[in-house]
């Protein structure tokens, strides 16, 4: 179903932020909305967004390719994005990541066998004083988790799994 049909209120609200002659500005918020559906952007979703903002499909795909928070490949239900940049690494982020990989039985960039979690290493998330930290990107948007340990992370994953099951 198209975004306009499924989320008429949201689409209208997004478009109202920008001058009507510059509706291309709405492409990024619309892509977030479209990504809500599957956790990644299908070709059909990109076509749909393109038609709302009068862009070509190629132009929309170029936006998706440029920005790291848009995904054109299916990943886990949740993406866990651990900051391993310099300030976090000075506070043990690399070690945290290694231990997390060992616990989950996957490498950075991989998805768990149950398709629930994709583990990614990312650059600075502006939480350098609260490392180790990561963000989760999933059906409930983007959330920060700071001052983390591997144990607390595994607990969080279990909680997320339960909440998803309840919804389904």
């Amino acid at each position, binding site marked *: 179903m198209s975004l306009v049909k499924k989320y008429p209120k949201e689409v209208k609200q997004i478009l109202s*932020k*920008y*001058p009507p002659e*510059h509706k*291309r*500005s*709405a*492409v*990024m*918020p619309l*892509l*977030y909305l479209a990504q809500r559906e599957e956790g990644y952007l299908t070709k059909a979703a990109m076509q749909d967004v393109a038609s709302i*903002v009068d*862009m070509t499909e190629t132009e929309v795909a*170029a*936006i998706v390719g*440029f*920005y*790291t*928070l*848009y995904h054109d490949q299916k990943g886990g239900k949740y993406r866990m994005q651990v900051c391993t*940049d*310099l*300030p976090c*690494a*000075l*506070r043990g982020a690399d070690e945290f990541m290694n231990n997390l990989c060992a616990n989950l039985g996957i490498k950075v960039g991989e998805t768990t066998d149950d398709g629930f979690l994709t583990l990614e290493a*990312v*650059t*600075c*998330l*502006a*939480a*350098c*004083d*609260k490392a180790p930290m990561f*963000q989760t990107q999933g059906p409930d*948007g*983007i*959330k*920060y988790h700071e001052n983390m340990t591997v144990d607390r992370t595994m607990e969080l994953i279990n909680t997320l799994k339960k909440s998803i099951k309840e919804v389904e």
Partner: protein
Amino acid sequence: MAHVILRHRDVPDIHTINVYKKNGGFAAFKNAVTKMTPAQVTDVVKNSGLRGRGGAGFPTGMKWSFIDNKNWPHYVVANADESEPGTFKDREIMESNPFQFLEGLAIASYAVGANAAYIYLRGEFWQLAAFLDEKIAEMEKEGVLGDKLFDGEYSLRMYTHLGAGAYICGEETALLESLEGKRGQPRVRPPFPPSYGLYGKPTIINNVETFANVPPIIENGADWYKSLGTADTAGVKVFSLSGRVRKPGNYELPFGATFRELIYTHGGGVQDSRSVKAIMPAGASSSLILVDDEKILDTPMDYVSVRTIGSDLGSASVIVIDDTVSMDWLVNKTIHFFKHESCGKCTTCREGTYWMSNISERIHHGKGSTGDVDLLLNVAKQMQGKCLCALGEFSTMAVVTGIERFPQDFKKAVSKA
């Protein structure tokens, strides 16, 4: 001294509109709109000596005075893309003292005649954008945003806009491109945004912290603000302290406070009581300060003084590096960052960061030769002065100063080969 910017640390619940109002909130904006001309507002900011807090330190009032009054409409954009490794101050300001930032944005908009202001937040600040949307709605309800404010002619609307994960969008023209729905790639300048900005219209872009300084300046005057800080660098600054310190975090101090005060008095000293080997005063974009003499720590943190020890204060994101860290590891980290974040538009940065990364990986993993260290330094120096925007330049800072100021670390790294 009471905080000027991080006021939430003195005034509980200042993030709620009633508490903010009770503590003088919106008085500066109302005063500006009802009793001052836009030019008068700009003059006060100019005379205060306020300089941009995003890193470049450009005089704020002067920037506002560059707005082209022959071309309309005008826009004001808040740069809330905070992505420099080591920087996390704007986030705290927006989360805990949001109205002071929004009021500053409103005053700036009045000063340059803009009726629409955009807040460009990095995509990861997803929850924060929703929070600011609530605050903006509360301001509309309160009558401090909307049409014909304070029974006058001035109208103002504010909108949040989320990026989607790209450091380069903190560069102001890349930010504008992104806000226009394009890939975030910097424009060739000139023309500069005050004459050709958002949708080709005159636009003023400032950092979140810069805006947060404006209400107290309007309220207390330029002379009061100048009495804080140093003769060259007026006012207070939120220093983001990270790395190997016991108490990392944001600390608001007047410009001119020393590194020692920040690291030892506020930051609780170095972890495991080790010694400071190096400091990056402006995040990953810094030239590394070699701390081979304790006296270096007594350098005042202001724009001029930090330059005398071979670096720049920039965004004042102070990363502390202790003597357990080897610079080949550190440089490999910063290069990886810039390679990942290079937008690909100019050849120098796209190719330069790629090759620096290749060489640095070799060195760090014990597969490099002495020649590789020279080669890495050579590539970095070749890049300097040839990039379209500051990102490419910044990518070379830690490389050049790392190799030149800590040669023994690289020597050791390649001796493993």
